[in-house]
């Protein structure tokens, strides 16, 4: 059994806003094992980035509250750390790659220096050593004429090359966990594939565990070992890639799968996305967040929150009332009146 590097337990994150509190993450659980890739998928606004940023504690301190839950890295809770201790971990143990390479590098600092900064900070390298390591990293991520490129500014690189620089920067200190938040969304399709290949290749060399956030199931199929499907601030289903793709159990996951164009399908046919819109997090209360859009909604779904249930092999879980043994599975005519009492 591979060892766990990162564990997120019942994470709840809320924000103070002018119109009141918004709980963007409401009970997220997952484990990340050494060298594996966990894909987190879900529509925009489902809380993927908030989950990622709360691991790194990059959310604005004054308005963010982690009201419940824990984040455990390498056996230690990150939430109890002082701000100095967390900066020691950022970039050296856990690193992050962001969505838009056009804005995630400092426009007025040479890229070499931006990579060196982290090395000098974490590995107590001299300038010369850091420069050599930065050069090595640029070569590793496949930047041509790396020696010369060290002294270039970000605007002198194309989008794809910049994302390579960002990856070099993130991996320079050999982190154990890399969080990539939609790392290819802003790139052209051909460049996307190159960046994903690069990440896969580097992962094999370095044994870094990756949390890959995306809303592209094609990317998931290509990269992930495990998949977590997020909806309304929760993981509604998670399991191995095969389980999620070939044995999806949650109605939302099923909807996502159906909306994905198949290889042999006529791509000019419009996608069949899930009808309705994502829930308003500010007003979301008890019950299943997907109830308003789910084709199988029952009474119980509106009043009680479904719990994670094992639905398949390798710890495949889903949070849906349909999995409750007391509920009659909808066959021809869904039993819309199934009642479950005494569940909280």
């Amino acid at each position, binding site marked *: 059994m591979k060892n766990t590097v990162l564990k997120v337990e019942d994470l709840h994150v809320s924000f103070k806003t002018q119109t009141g509190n918004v709980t963007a993450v409401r009970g997220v659980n997952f484990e990340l094992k050494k060298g594996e890739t966990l894909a987190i998928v879900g529509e925009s606004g489902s809380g993927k980035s908030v989950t990622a940023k709360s691991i*790194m504690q*990059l959310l604005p301190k004054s308005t963010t509250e982690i009201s419940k839950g824990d984040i455990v890295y390498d056996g230690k809770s990150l939430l109890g750390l002082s*701000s*100095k201790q967390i*900066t*020691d*971990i*950022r*970039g*050296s143990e856990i*690193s*992050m790659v*962001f969505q*838009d390479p056009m*804005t*995630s*590098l*400092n*426009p*007025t*600092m040479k890229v070499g220096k931006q990579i060196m*900064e*982290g090395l000098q*900070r*974490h590995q107590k390298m001299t300038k010369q050593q850091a420069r050599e390591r930065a050069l090595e990293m640029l070569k590793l991520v496949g930047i041509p004429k790396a020696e010369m490129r060290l002294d270039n*500014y970000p*605007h*002198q690189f194309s989008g794809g090359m910049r994302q390579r620089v*960002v990856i070099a*920067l*993130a991996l320079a200190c050999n982190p154990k966990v890399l969080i990539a938040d939609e790392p290819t969304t802003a790139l052209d399709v051909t460049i996307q594939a190159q960046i994903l290949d690069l990440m896969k290749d580097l992962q094999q060399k370095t044994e870094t565990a990756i949390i890959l956030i995306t809303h592209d199931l094609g990317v998931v199929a290509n990269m992930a070992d495990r998949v977590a499907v997020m909806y309304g601030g929760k993981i509604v289903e998670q399991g191995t890639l095969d389980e999620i793709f070939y044995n999806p159990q949650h109605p939302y996951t099923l909807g996502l799968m159906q909306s994905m164009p198949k290889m042999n399908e006529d791509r000019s046919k419009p996608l069949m996305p899930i009808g309705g819109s994502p829930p308003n997090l500010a007003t979301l209360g008890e019950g299943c967040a997907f109830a308003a859009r789910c084709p199988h909604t029952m009474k119980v779904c509106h009043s009680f929150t479904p719990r994670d249930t094992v639905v398949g092999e390798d710890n495949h879980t889903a949070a849906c009332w349909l999995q409750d043994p007391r509920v009659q599975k909808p066959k021809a005519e869904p039993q819309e009146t199934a009642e479950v009492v005494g569940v909280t």
Partner: protein
Amino acid sequence: MKGYLLKRIGYMLITLFIIVTATFFLMQLLPGTPFTNPEKLSAQQLAVLNAKYGLDQPVAMQYLHYLGNLVQGDLGYSFQHEGRTVTSMISTRIGPSAFIGLQALVIGAILGLVLGIISALKHNSIFDYGSVALAVIGMSIPSFVFAALLQYYIGVKLEWLPVALWEGYSSTLLPSIALSVTVTATVARFIRSEMLEVLGQDYVITARAKGMRENQVIVKHVIRNALIPVVTMLGPLAVSIMTGTLVIEKIFSVPGLGEQFTLSILVLDYSVIMGITIFYSALFIFVVFVVDIIYGFLDPRINFKGEAA
């Protein structure tokens, strides 16, 4: 780079030419004559004077003559001060003006930067609200009001600093402080909004995600990027100081260019008014030029073809 510089210098000369021309013809529209009590002069005396200053010639000739002299750095003679050239009047007067102006710029820039940066870092705090309010006040109240207040409280009541006149370094302080209020307010407001904008940029999160300590993030990534555009404010600030000095010098009896300018307007000393106007314009155009060059060096995204890459 060389081509860019030549082009910019060309544009500067054209701008200056337009300003000189406009000033020259506007002066023609001014009522009155430059000679005191012209009614006491005989027709013959007037004719002699007009001939001496070239006023008997057609306007077009006067204009060409003026341009020709200007190219040689000659701004003509004062109408009021027998035998004094405008150039010499400017050069004897520029020292005090430049001194209080630059001193105001330094005081204002330092105070403004400190105030604006702290404001942005303590966004939405009492300090922030307070300094924003102060900045609005500082920008909307003209500097002569501050001058009067300073004169009264610091000069007359407390007697800490001289009320007026030009007697040693201490005399420069009140005029500079009065002038610096607008500068402080403008700089504070500007750097505050630049800082807030930079603080929201993705690359600041990248810097934090790298594990940089917060003060390193602020100094190396936020302040550095927020400071670059501040250079572009030097132009407008120079203008505000130049116009500020016109009144401030009068109030504090500073023997500077501004005081000379107001005096000359009162007595319709045409050549001096024109000379100083042209001098101020040239100075301003030059400041803008220098600012652009400095900006190009500070921001690597600018190349000297004059456009962002």
